[in-house]
């Protein structure tokens, strides 16, 4: 039996909202934290899906933006919490504990780095693109490890979650609300983006750069813009993730994390709007359920992932909704 993709999408979002509310009623705050984690990972993967799914560029270094977002939060909040202004030469900056400001900084910095990395990386394609993005990710990883001013390998602890006007973000359900709202807004914008002329051009650039060029468009430029948007969204997710854990460390830059983001998308369905969201939910649920069963839970996770690749082409959405084209 095949389900309509829109119905499926609506059900997923509804479930993501209902589970924490149920947990709130049952007084199970950890379940809320767990769903929040899925929401944030989903957001990061939604960002990655713009380049990977819509644009066909397999970035194996997106943890770079996740980490930049995390460190943007970490550094700003660290200076605010220790009352040590950040000396930038021309002027000093007090640091901040305000979430909206942190989000803005995280997105702007991620976008700028994405511009630079994209300019250099997009000269390559295919496997070379995978590897050059990995290389940039590794550079950031090793840099963060040796950056003693902000904790190096130990990372930075931020003891109290940052502030959002009118909310107490330390209450799990309120922080969940913030993250869920952001995810919905971003999903809405991404859906609009995909249907816009830009999204269509990006889809065309994925299929054939030459044809796009003959239309008078510059495929490089389209891909670069997509890469920047994608980096900014993943950076925003990184800032939220850091706030969820009240902690940042170089592991946010690790290649394993880049790999996990890709895995989330494939589980859900590449190029599908809600693919990353479903993938993140399934991944977090598996991690949580299997981890409690056995010491050797990685084996089972591996087997399940293998089965998804071998028997559920097009990801779980593909399995549920049938072979409808992923690209409108």
């Amino acid at each position, binding site marked *: 039996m095949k389900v309509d993709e829109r119905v499926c999408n609506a059900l997923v979002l509804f479930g993501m909202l209902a589970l924490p509310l149920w947990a709130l009623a049952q007084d199970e705050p950890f379940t809320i934290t767990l769903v929040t984690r899925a929401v944030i990972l989903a957001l990061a993967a939604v960002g990655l899906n713009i380049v990977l799914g819509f644009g066909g560029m397999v970035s194996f270094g997106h943890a770079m933006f996740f980490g930049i977002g995390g460190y943007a939060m970490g550094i700003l909040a660290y200076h605010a919490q220790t009352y040590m202004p950040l000396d930038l030469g021309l002027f000093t900056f007090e640091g901040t504990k305000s979430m909206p400001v942190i989000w803005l900084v995280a997105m702007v910095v991620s976008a700028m780095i994405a511009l630079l990395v994209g300019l250099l990386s997009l000269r*390559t394609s295919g*496997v070379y693109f995978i*590897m050059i993005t990995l*290389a940039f990710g590794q550079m950031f990883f090793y840099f963060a490890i040796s950056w003693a001013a902000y904790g190096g390998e130990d990372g930075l602890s931020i003891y109290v979650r940052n502030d959002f006007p009118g909310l107490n973000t330390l209450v799990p359900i309120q922080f969940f609300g913030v993250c869920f709202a952001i995810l919905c807004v971003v999903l809405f914008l991404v859906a609009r983006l995909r249907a816009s002329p830009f999204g269509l051009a990006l889809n065309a650039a994925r299929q054939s750069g030459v044809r796009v060029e003959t239309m008078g468009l510059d495929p490089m430029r389209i891909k670069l813009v997509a890469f920047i948007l994608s980096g900014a969204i993943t950076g925003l997710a990184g800032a939220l993730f850091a706030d969820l854990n009240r902690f940042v460390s170089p592991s946010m830059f690790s290649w394993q994390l880049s790999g996990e983001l890709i895995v989330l998308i494939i589980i859900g369905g*590449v190029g599908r709007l809600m693919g990353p969201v479903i993938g993140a939910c399934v991944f977090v649920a598996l991690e949580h359920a299997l981890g409690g069963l056995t010491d050797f839970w*990685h084996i089972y996770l591996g087997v399940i992932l*293998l089965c998804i*690749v071998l028997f559920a*082409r097009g990801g779980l959405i593909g399995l549920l909704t049938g072979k409808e084209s992923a690209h409108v």
Partner: protein
Amino acid sequence: MSSILIIEQILNGLQFGVMLFLMAAGLTLIFGVMGLINLAHGSLYMVGAFATAAVAGATGSFLLGLIAAMVAAALAGAIIEMVVIRRLYKAPHLDQVLATFALILIFSEGTRWLFGSFPLFLDIPDVISGPVTLPGGIAYPIYRLTLIAVGLAVAIGLWLLIERTRIGIQIRAGENDREMIAALGVDISKLYTLVFALGAALAGLAGGLVGAIQSVQIGMGEPVLILAFVVIVIGGIGSVRGAFVGALLVGLTDTLGGVFLPEFFKLFMETGAAQKTGSAISSMSVYVLMGIVLIWRPTGLFGARS
């Protein structure tokens, strides 16, 4: 810094590079012939190291251990090729990445389940342990010289195999045009299994050889895997010659960067800070090298030009 020290460091870089070549050769062959990105290649390296440690521990013979490493890794490679990989040749790169990522999880925890959580013992055989004095008064471990020799021998052997034998012709043909050689009556699925097993055996050999001077433990394959990918990308994917040049470049950059960058920073910083800065930058040096090569030549040094 004396010239003896510099020569010794160059030897170290060569030795590291040659070992990377053993890993990278298999990866690049598998990619060249089958178009497959095999993240599980590092697991085969680990399988080789564990097989060597287990067999050398039981029989006391390091050589038997190495043979076991190649056999075990080749077997593991052939099995995963037939059970999993074979279904993925037509799949997009992404599915291959996920499937081989899943294999890493299975291999790592499976090995831990079999051998326990503690590192295994594996030592250099007595005959080739200890240092030897080279011309010019350089004391250098015999075992590392042996590694360089073995690596070069394998490189020559591979070159002969590919250039001078019937299988080599099939491999080269497979890289160029898969449909054609299938049409010419070559059993393509047998050829694929064979190439996969060959690449796996080389990774297993590298694992066994390096395991003797390093720690035989779970997860030992992943750092090497990443470097091996860097190597084949620098060399140009699919090119064994490129893998050789790339491996030496990466080995030398990594080793010499770690030695000379801190010295360089000492010229204008105090010792401790220079050490830390130099070491931080040298850990990025390999990736910087790869970035530069790709920006200069987007398909690597010896890659096919589009």
